[in-house]
C-alpha cells in the first residue's frame, strides 16, 4: 500500500527546482500519459482515464517549489499532480493498469490515489472534494506550527461546488497556509466553461481578502513564479492565495470521449501552445534530448514493472478497510 517504499523516485529535490528539472517532470508526465493512453486503447486500463496532456505546466510549476512535507490535493485528472509531487511512475502505472503493485493495490485506479507519505492527500472522484481536505491539511500545519503549506488543485468546474466558497472563507479567516490553484482547462466534462462559470475565477477570493491572479498555465516558469510568491506568503503566515492557471484540455473528458462538441480548430490552436515547447526552449537541445531518452527508459522500466505485477484479484478487495487490530 501507500506506505511501501516508492520504487522509482521520479521527483526532483523539492525547493531547488531548475528549468531542467521542470522540463524533465513535464516530459515524464506527458510520456506517462501517452503511454497510458496507448495502454487504454489496448484494453489494459480497467478504469476511466482523464488525461492532463497539455496541462503539465500547472502541476509542475505548482509543485516544483514544494517540500515533501507540504501537502497537495488533486482531482479526477491528476496524474501530473501525482508525479510532480513525487509519486513513483511505476507504482502509479501499476495502479492505472489495475495491478497489485499499484498504490491502492490496483483497486482504486486513477481517481483514487493517495500517498500521504509524500504529501499527496488524494486525487478524487468527487469534484470539489479536495477543497475541504486541503483546508484541513493547512489547518493542521498551523496547529503544528510548521511552515509547511498545502496546495489545492481543482478544475474550473469545481468552482461551482459549495466546498469552494466554504474553503475560501475559512482559509482567509484563519490565514491558512493554503494555495488555491484553479486549473482552468476550458472544459467541464462535456460542456465549455461558459456553461458553468459566471465572472472571473481569479477574483473569487477578493471579497474575502485573498489575493488572486491569473497566470498562463501553459508557461511553467510563470506558474512556478506565481507559486513561489504564494508559497512564501503562506510559509510566512500571511495566508492563502488564489491562482487561476489558464490552460487547455487537449483530450476529451476521458480517453474514450472524442470531444465532438468542440471545434478542431480550437484544439489545434491550443496544441500550438504546447507547454513542453516553451519549457524545452529554456534548456540546451542536447541536454533536453538526453532527458527525453532517459524518460523513455524510465517509462519503459515503469511499464514493465507494472505489467509484471499481477492483476488485482478478488481477495484483495477486502484489504485495507480498517486498521489491522
Amino acid at each position, binding site marked *: 500500500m501507500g506506505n511501501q517504499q516508492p520504487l522509482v523516485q521520479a521527483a526532483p529535490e523539492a525547493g531547488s527546482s531548475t528549468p531542467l528539472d521542470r522540463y524533465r517532470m513535464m516530459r515524464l508526465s506527458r510520456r506517462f500519459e501517452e503511454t497510458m493512453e496507448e495502454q487504454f486503447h489496448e484494453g489494459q486500463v480497467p478504469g476511466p482515464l482523464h488525461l492532463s496532456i497539455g496541462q503539465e505546466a500547472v502541476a509542475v510549476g505548482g509543485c516544483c517549489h514544494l517540500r515533501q512535507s507540504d501537502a497537495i490535493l488533486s482531482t479526477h485528472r491528476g496524474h501530473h499532480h501525482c508525479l510532480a509531487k513525487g509519486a513513483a511512475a511505476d507504482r502509479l502505472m501499476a495502479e492505472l493498469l489495475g495491478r497489485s503493485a499499484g498504490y491502492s493495490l490496483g483497486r482504486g485506479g486513477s481517481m*483514487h490515489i493517495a500517498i500521504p507519505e509524500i504529501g499527496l492527500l488524494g486525487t478524487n*472522484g468527487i*469534484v470539489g472534494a479536495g477543497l475541504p481536505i486541503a483546508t484541513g491539511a493547512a489547518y493542521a500545519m498551523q496547529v503544528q506550527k510548521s511552515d509547511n503549506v498545502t496546495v489545492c488543485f481543482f478544475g474550473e468546474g469545481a468552482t461551482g461546488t459549495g466546498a469552494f466558497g466554504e474553503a475560501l472563507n475559512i482559509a482567509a479567516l484563519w490565514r491558512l497556509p493554503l494555495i488555491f490553484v484553479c486549473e482552468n482547462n476550458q472544459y467541464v466534462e462535456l460542456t465549455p466553461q461558459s456553461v458553468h462559470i459566471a465572472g472571473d475565477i481569479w477574483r473569487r477570493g477578493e471579497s474575502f481578502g485573498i489575493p488572486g491572479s491569473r497566470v498562463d498555465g501553459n508557461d511553467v516558469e510563470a506558474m512556478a513564479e506565481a507559486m513561489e510568491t504564494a508559497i512564501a506568503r503562506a510559509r510566512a503566515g500571511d495566508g492563502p492565495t488564489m491562482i487561476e492557471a489558464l490552460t487547455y484540455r487537449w483530450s476529451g473528458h476521458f480517453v474514450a470521449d472524442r470531444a465532438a462538441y468542440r471545434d478542431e480548430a480550437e484544439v489545434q490552436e491550443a496544441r500550438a501552445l504546447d507547454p513542453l515547447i516553451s519549457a524545452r526552449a529554456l534548456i540546451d537541445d542536447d541536454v533536453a534530448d538526453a532527458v527525453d531518452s532517459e524518460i523513455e527508459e524510465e517509462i519503459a522500466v515503469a511499464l514493465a514493472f507494472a505489467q509484471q505485477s499481477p492483476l488485482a484479484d478478488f481477495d484483495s478487495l477486502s484489504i485495507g478497510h480498517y486498521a489491522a487490530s
Partner: protein
Amino acid sequence: MTDISVETRPLKFWQGVNQALVEEMERDENVVLVGEDVARPGGPYGVTRGLLDKFGDLRVRDTPISEAVLVGLGIGGAGVGLRPVVEVMFFDFAMIAMDQIVNQAAKFRYFSGADMPLVIRTMCGAGGPNGAQHSQNFEAWYCGVPGLKVVMPSNALDAKGLLKSSIRDNDPVLFIETLGLLTQRRDVPVGEDLLIPLGVADIRREGSDVTVVAIGRLVDRALEAAERLQEEDGISVEVIDPRTLSPLDTETILESVRRTGRLVTAQEATAPCSVGSELVALAAESCLSELKAAPIRVASPFVNVPTPLPLAEERAPGVEDVMSAVRETMQGS
C-alpha cells in the same frame, strides 16, 4: 405480472427513461429537466439525448457542478408551480444534496400542506469501471425518510411507466436508475400512455417454493436463476420486484412469503441496514411461524467497489449467488 395484450416493441432501459421524459414534457409544459450535462451533451450516458432540441434551453438546462443547488432548483421550482425533474449524475453525488432531499423536499408538505411534485433521477451501481466513489447503492438511506418516495425500476418497461407516474406524482420521488441496466431490453406497449402505479410490487414470475424479492439489477438475475432452478432442480421460484422501495408494497411481498414459506432477497447494495434487511425483518416479524427456512440476503460483500470492471462485477451478486441462496433455503427447515 404485467399482462400485455397490445402491440409491443422492445425498448432499452435508457430509451424508456428518455421516452417518459419526452412524453411528460410534451404533455405538461411545467415539466422541466435540469442537471449536469443533460442538455447539450444529452446526458453523460446519452439518456437525455434529443430533449434540448425538442424543448429548448430553458426547460432542459445544463447546470454547473452544484448538487445542492441542483436539487434546490427542483424544490423551489416545484414551490412556484413547475414539476421539475432533476438529474443527479451519480447516486453517490446525491450525498452532497442530501439535506435538500431529506430535510427540505421530503418535509415540504408536512410543513405547508402543499404539493412538492419533484423527481430526482440518479444513477446507481457498479455497472461501469468507475470505482468506489461512483458505484454505490444507497437506496436504503432514503427509505427511512417520511415524505419521500423511492422508486427503483429494474427494466425498460418499468423505467418508462414508473418515471411517467413519478413525474405526475405530487410527492417528491427519488428515482434510481441503474448504470448496469441502461441497455437492458424489455417489450413495451406501443402508442399507450404507460403509467405504472407507485407503491405496487410486480410479481415477475410466479412460483410456489421460494419467494425471491429482488431489486434493480438483481431482478433479471433472479429471473434467470429462477428459470435455471426450475430446470436444474425443479424448484419453483416466485420473483417479486417491489419497484417502489418506499412506500413498500408489503402486502404483496408478505402474501408471497406466507405462501412459499421461504424468502431470499437480492440486491446490489451491501447488506447492513439495507432493503434486504428490511424485507427479512418484515418477514420475520409478520410471518415467522410460516417460514420453513431461514431467509437469506444476497448482497454485495461489505467492501468498497473496485475500479476494474471485472472485479466490480465479481463483487456484485450474480445469478449463481441467487441460485445457491435459493438452494440453501430449500435445504433449511
